[in-house]
C-alpha cells in the first residue's frame, strides 16, 4: 500500500502547495518589516503618546496567539455588514489577503522589538564620531546607524523569519491550500495516517534549514571584520 508512487505523488502535490505557504510568508515578512520599522521608530521617537501607542501595539500583538488574530480578521471583521459593504471587503473577502495581513501585523510586533534592540545596541561612540564629522539626519542613519544595527539584528531576525514559516501553517485553518492543509486533505482522502504529515514536515524543515543557512551566509558576508585573518 505504501508505494513509492504514493510518496512521489504526495510530495509533488505538497510542493505545489509550497507556493501558497511561501507567498504568505514572504508577503507577511516583507510588509511586517515596514510596519515593524514604523513601530520601532515610533517607540524611539521620544514623543510620549506616540511611544505609548507603539508599546500598546507590541503588547497586544505579542500577547495574543496568532490564531486569535487571524480569526478576528477573517471571521470577525467579515461578520459586520458595514465592512461587507465597504471597499475593504474587496480586500478582506479573500482568505489569502486576511492571512497575509494578520501574519504581517503579528510579525511586525516582533520585528519592531528586534529593530528597537538593534538600534539601542549601536555604540554611542560611533554616533558621536559621526556627528563630530558633521554627519546628521539621514546620512548618519544610512552610513553609521543602519549598517551597525542591521548586523546586530540579523541573528534575532533569522529566528523570527523562520518562526513565521512555521506560523504560516495556521492559514490552513482559514481555507487556504498551503502545505499543511494539503497534507491534511491527502491524509483524509487516502486514510494514510502519517506519510503526508511526515513529507510535509520534511518540506517545512528543509525550507527552514535553507533560510537559516542563508542568514548565516549573510551574517558572515556582512561582518568581514569578525572573520579570523588566518581563515
Amino acid at each position, binding site marked *: 500500500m505504501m508505494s513509492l508512487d504514493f510518496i512521489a505523488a504526495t510530495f509533488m502535490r505538497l510542493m505545489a502547495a509550497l507556493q501558497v505557504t511561501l507567498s504568505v510568508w514572504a508577503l507577511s515578512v516583507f510588509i511586517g518589516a515596514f510596519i515593524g520599522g514604523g513601530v520601532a521608530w515610533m517607540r524611539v521617537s521620544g514623543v510620549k503618546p506616540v511611544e505609548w501607542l507603539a508599546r500598546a501595539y507590541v503588547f497586544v500583538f505579542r500577547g495574543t496567539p496568532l490564531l486569535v488574530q487571524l480569526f478576528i480578521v477573517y471571521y470577525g471583521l467579515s461578520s459586520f455588514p458595514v465592512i461587507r459593504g465597504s471597499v475593504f471587503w474587496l480586500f478582506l473577502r479573500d482568505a489569502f489577503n486576511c492571512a497575509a495581513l494578520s501574519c504581517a501585523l503579528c510579525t511586525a510586533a516582533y520585528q519592531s522589538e528586534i529593530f528597537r534592540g538593534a538600534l539601542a545596541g549601536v555604540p554611542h561612540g560611533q554616533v558621536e564620531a559621526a556627528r563630530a564629522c558633521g554627519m546628521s539626519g539621514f546620512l548618519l542613519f544610512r552610513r553609521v546607524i543602519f549598517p551597525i544595527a542591521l548586523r546586530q539584528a540579523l541573528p534575532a531576525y533569522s529566528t523570527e523569519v523562520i518562526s513565521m514559516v512555521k506560523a504560516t501553517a*495556521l492559514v490552513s485553518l482559514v481555507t487556504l491550500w498551503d502545505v499543511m492543509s494539503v497534507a491534511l486533505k491527502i491524509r483524509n482522502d487516502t486514510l494514510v495516517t502519517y506519510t503526508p*504529515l511526515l513529507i*510535509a514536515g520534511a518540506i*517545512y524543515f528543509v525550507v527552514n534549514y535553507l533560510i537559516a543557512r542563508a542568514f548565516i551566509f549573510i551574517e558572515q558576508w556582512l561582518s568581514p571584520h569578525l572573520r579570523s585573518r588566518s581563515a
Partner: protein
Amino acid sequence: MDWLTALGFGERGWGPALLQGAMMTLFVSGAGLAIGAALGSLVAWAKLSGVRIAGAIGEGYAALFRGLPELLVVYFVYFGSSALLTATAHLLGVEGFVGVPAFAAGALAVGVISGSYQAEVFRGAFLAVAKGEIEAARAVGMGRLLMFRRIIAPQVLRYAIPGLGNLWQVALKDSSLISVTGLTELMRASQLASNSTHKPFTYYVAGGALYLLLTAFSDRVFDFAERRATRGMRREAT
C-alpha cells in the same frame, strides 16, 4: 449593551465558558511547560555530558522540533499518540480504537515543542553557574547528588527564570493550536461561542483579551520570581 449579555454570566452569556476555557489553557500550558522542562533538562544534560551519541540525539531532537510548524506537531502528536495507544491496547487484547485524551495529547505537543527550546535555556543556565562553586562543593566532599541538589539545581533554576518566562508565554500561545484536536481551551471556547451565536468578532476579541490577561499577568509573576531569586546577587551598575 448587547455584548455585555453576550459575555455575561446570564443564561445567554458565554462568560463562564470562556473563563473555563482560560483555566484549561492555563492547565494544559502548565502541563506542557512541565513536560518541556523534563525533556529540556534531559537534552541539556545529554549535551553537557560529553557523551557524543547522547549529545547528538539531544541536538537532533531539539533541531527537529524547532524546525517544524507547531500546528504540524500538534496534529502529529495527536494522531500519533492515539495510534500508538491503540497498537499497545491491541497487544493487550483490547479491540478497537483507543483515543488519547485531548488534554494529554495537547500537553505532550506543547511539551515537546517547549522542550526543544528549554534545552538551550537549561544548558545556558548551567554554564552560568560559576565553576568555582562546583569545585568548592567537590572540595568539601559532596557527592554528585548532593551537589546537584544543593549547588547546581538552585542556581540553574535562578538563571533559567527569564528564559522560562519567555517560553511560558510561547506555551500559552501555542496551546491555542490544541483547539484543532477538540480540547475546549480558551481558543476552542471562543470558537464554540462564536459559532453558536454568529458573533465571531465579539468572542474572538474576548478570547484574545483573556489571552492578553494571561500573558500580561504571568509576565508580572516571572518578573517577581526573577527579582526574588536574584535578590542576593550583586547587581552590575547600569
